């Protein structure tokens, strides 16, 4: 599973960790994040992320 970095603030989404504050379980692939998921640091949308 690939990591993705937020182009705005630099936060890295690691699928092995997930995003517990947003209810995203560990093991969730970036592509399977809900479309309205936002960067937990800056609120950017999925479209503002690039593969690391």
């Amino acid at each position: 599973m690939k990591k993705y970095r937020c182009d705005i603030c630099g936060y890295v989404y690691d699928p092995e960790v997930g995003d517990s504050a947003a209810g995203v379980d560990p093991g969730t692939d970036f592509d399977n994040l809900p479309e309205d998921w936002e960067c937990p640091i800056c609120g950017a949308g999925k479209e503002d992320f690039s593969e690391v």
Partner: protein
Amino acid sequence: MNPIKLTEKIYWVGAIDWNVRDFHGYSTNRGTTYNAYLIMDEKITLVDTVKSSLKDDLISRISEIVDPKKIDYIVVNHVEMDHSGALPDMVDLIQPEKIICSKMGEKALRQHFHRDDWPYEIAVPGEDISLGSKTLSFLETRMLHWPDSMFTYVVEDKLLFSSDAFGMHLASSERFDDEISPAILMDEMTKYYANILTLYSPLVKKLIAKVQEIGLEIDMIAPDHGVVWRSNPMMAIEAYDRWSRNEGKGNALVIYDTMWHSTEKMAKEVAAGLQDEGVSVKLLNLRYCHRSDVMSEVLDASAIVLGCSTLNNGLLPRMAGFLMYMRGLRPANKIGAAFGSFGWSGEAVKLLNASMEEMKFDVVDDGLKVKYVPESCDLSDCVALGRKVGQALKN
């Protein structure tokens, strides 16, 4: 210390820093202000504070209007120390009923001041807070320019407390946009955007669209640095709108550093080639031009040509530092090219190209390297490089 009235019940009570000349790497040649505001309503509210060293100015200005202990709420639009440094002392003095901040603001305040006993109240967009006759409304503006950043809007006055957005580093006894030359305001607002906000342009674009979408009416913008926009807030909004779209003005910059004037000679000929193509060009020698002033020029430029001699198989330190700084600010939509003189190994041009590629510049040439001192045929090649960049600008 004199507070300054913005509207019937709202005052500027901040501090003027006449002395600051270096803001962690950004040259503040005209000093700055840390703006704080006082709303005299049933719930007396202080919006932001100042740098800790100037807290006495803040207390003195508030005291001209009211005993600071009577303040009920403190709004923290931005946690950075130049606006929150005085906060711990102010909280101790005021004992506020609420400290209103964004969700990320609460986290950042706890991580700065380690105070779990403060009365944090998270401002939620869409959930207004009434102060009596006035209503505060909130906009989350994450990464403009920290995760905690937010705007506070006074509904009845159509007044926007915009945190660091629309601000500038400018110390002055005058507090309003109509009291200072528009040329100075544009100069300092450009420098502020270029050095603080360039990398967040996509968010600025979204924010402006959102403000238009919700139909927020703005009569006055009160930022945390520099003047309050009371006569022409659209000047600030339109400038941000333009910069957020990364539209260059069609001009070029030749930014360089040189050891024994060889790269400088090349720079002048590259500039001549650009002029031959009718392109407006500026030569910026990093020995004399501060990186933050160069960034002001980069903001509106369409082409960036970088020149550097090779030193110890690498770049000259001023160019290396400048590239690190520029890369972090992520200027977009630029045409690029590189040149430089060298003695035996000549890595500089390759490094300049790699850096521009990383910034996604459209690098239009492999770059020009000249051994030791350029002769006339080399200088002709430099003119040709300038012309090539000039032609690329027209396409």
